């Protein structure tokens, strides 16, 4: 026992010695990081969720970024002033947490000395990474994150290729308000309390008010609860439109609840969630007639020149490489790479980029106005959606005959919207 006490005492002294040394060390000044060593390829940092709860989405962005880098390298690299420079992607997992996203950014910038960064899948991790890219003045484009919170902060070095969900979710409401008759008069909105879903629900409400559709019920519920009471409350209002702000899983459960309750609105509206294969699988033929929104599908008629000429060509090459159909996030991630590539070509910057070139790259991105297979890429330079892609027009989609069809708004339609949705017992 006595021995035990003694050893404790020594430990105590040991600690203070260690802490003293640490404190002393902390009084000296560290050298600043020097210039990157010469190389003839671009080092591109990628921070995204490869593990943790967002790993699925993180891998979606990874496929999009890989598609860009591999296609560029197959052509010999990015052509700048007559010479081609290959790109090397360096991944850093953000473990689906903001704290790790910040360390990941710090590592890619200070250890790997990357030229620029392709950003995370989720908005939370992006909001932790953006201050780091800001601090080191390194250009950063996210091919997935889109929360209005990111753009409200007006980060100088952060850009995004996907328009905010608040803009995107308007598309199906606008289509229903302008392209069908009789025009729906009322809407009930049910949302989930995560940032993405809540913004979508708010966007439905704003759009409904803008297009003269009366909001008869608006409710936000926690994820994972039993949605039957909330759906039942919406049914009691007998709305023409039932809009769901959520990811696909909750949307599937809400639509199932609506079927059980024999809730027959004239239109079911969702947004991105309904474009996923899981939505289709989870609901089977009950997915039919559901409206949604996206910023990109492989059927659109864009004509482009950089890397891929059409959405169709991209989709075919993507499927040959990964065995799955690309969705809008993969396309937007590839487009993030294309935006960098085109801006680099314009400023004729060669690797490694020095600070002046990185700043010139940001200036070029701000002026960028290009047509890609993903659609127009043009970053906003003012307003609430600063540096998000303002060039792209979101599209309304609907399941018709088991397929996703572009139904609006207006001239974007490739088919007429089917409205009203027949009651459950007559489908």
């Amino acid at each position: 026992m006595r021995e035990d006490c003694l050893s404790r005492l020594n430990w105590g002294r040991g600690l203070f010695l260690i802490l003293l040394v640490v404190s002393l060390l902390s009084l000296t000044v560290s050298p600043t990081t020097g210039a990157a060593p010469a190389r003839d390829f671009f080092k591109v940092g990628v921070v995204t969720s490869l593990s943790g709860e967002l790993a699925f989405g993180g891998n979606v962005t990874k496929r999009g970024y890989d598609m860009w880098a591999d296609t560029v390298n197959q052509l010999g690299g990015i052509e700048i002033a007559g010479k081609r420079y290959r790109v090397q992607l360096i991944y850093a997992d953000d473990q689906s947490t903001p704290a790790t996203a910040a360390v990941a950014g710090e590592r890619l910038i200070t250890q790997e000395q990357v030229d620029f960064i392709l950003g995370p899948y989720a908005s939370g991790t992006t909001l932790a990474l953006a201050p780091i890219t800001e601090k080191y003045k390194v250009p950063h484009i996210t091919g997935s994150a889109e929360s209005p919170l990111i753009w409200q902060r007006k980060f100088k070095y952060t850009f995004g290729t996907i328009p905010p969900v608040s803009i995107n979710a308007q598309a199906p409401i606008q289509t229903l308000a302008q392209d069908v008759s009789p025009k729906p008069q009322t809407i009930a909105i049910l949302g989930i309390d995560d940032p993405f879903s809540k913004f979508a629900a708010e966007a439905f409400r704003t759009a409904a008010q803008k297009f003269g559709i009366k909001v008869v019920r608006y409710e936000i519920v926690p994820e994972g609860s039993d949605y039957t009471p909330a759906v039942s409350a919406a049914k009691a209002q007998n709305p023409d439109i039932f809009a769901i702000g959520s990811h696909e899983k909750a949307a599937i459960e809400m639509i199932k609840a609506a079927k059980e309750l024999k809730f027959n609105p004239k239109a079911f509206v969702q947004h991105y969630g309904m474009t996923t294969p899981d939505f289709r699988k989870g609901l089977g033929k009950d997915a039919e007639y559901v409206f949604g929104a996206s910023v990109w599908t492989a059927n659109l008629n864009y004509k482009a020149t950089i890397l891929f000429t059409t959405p169709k060509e991209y989709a075919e090459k993507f499927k040959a490489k990964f065995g799955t159909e690309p969705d809008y996030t993969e396309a937007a991630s590839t487009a993030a790479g294309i935006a960098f590539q085109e801006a680099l070509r314009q400023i004729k910057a060669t690797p490694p980029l020095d600070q002046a070139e990185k700043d010139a790259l940001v200036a070029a991105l701000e002026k960028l106005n290009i047509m890609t297979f993903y659609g127009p890429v043009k970053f906003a330079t003012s307003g609430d959606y600063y540096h998000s892609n303002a060039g792209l027009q979101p599209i309304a989609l609907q399941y018709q005959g088991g397929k996703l069809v572009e139904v609006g708004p207006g001239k974007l339609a490739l088919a007429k919207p089917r409205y009203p949705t027949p009651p459950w017992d007559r489908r």
Partner: protein
Amino acid sequence: MAVPLFVSSFWLRIATEVLMWAGLAQSWNIIGGYTGYLSFGHGAFFGIGAYTTAILMVHAGWPFWPTLPVGAVLSVLCAATIGIPTLRLRGAYFAIATWAFGEAVRQVATVLEITGGAFGMQLPPFLNLPFFYEAILIATILTYLLAYLLLERSMFGYKLRAIRENEIAAETAGVDTVVTKIEAFALSAIPAAIFGGLYAYLITYIHPDSVLGPAITDLMVVMVLFGGVGTLWGPLVGATAIQLVNRLLWFLRGESTLYLVYAGVAICLVVLFMPDGLMGLVERRRVLFRPRENLKALLRQFKL
């Protein structure tokens, strides 16, 4: 500002994280280790500290420093409020109540307007990493100094250990066990809240899932178990080992996620075969190849 010599900001950030987790693990160790009461809601105090700092800075325009004591006081009040009814009971009730408290705080933060709800909150960016390193270093030193003085060198510490080893005997010997336990729980909430405030300002973005999610508490518990439950240096050793190994594996094997598996296996092995954690090895105590007894001893310590 002052920075450790020859350290790039990447390693400085990792050192900052390690120090923060060492402090957080010690805060859990006060109630979980020294007192033997499992707090599964300890992350809530971290979150309360983080949100207090965020709300006061964003909505009330406060400077950073004064927000820290406010968060600490709020956490102490919360700890006392939960402790007064639940610490009269023994066994698993406290663990269940603290778990429920943690979940409740997370749900409240998700619903309220002032916390930004599900959108989370952004703090004014102050990207001076050396500042955070120094601040967290000082907070960690103070936490360990507090633990050393109060738990290793005072009557209070003996009372807590008496409660852990045999609560009935402690009471017979004249220890007011309920009050002592509540004091320990309230004390343990203070460092957690301080580090919460520091974290919020360091990362500049907080969300109910990132500062109030179960992962915060889980890591504190695992670090203490790994290092050595109820010892002064166990939390430091455990936090350093886990956070550093996590980051090194992440750094060296960054493109695969296999490092999570390595970390999980290592934690299982320590809990099963090294009942005294890494500190047990340092003190040349034992590696015991009797996992069943080791687990039983652990459960006994937590009165389960």
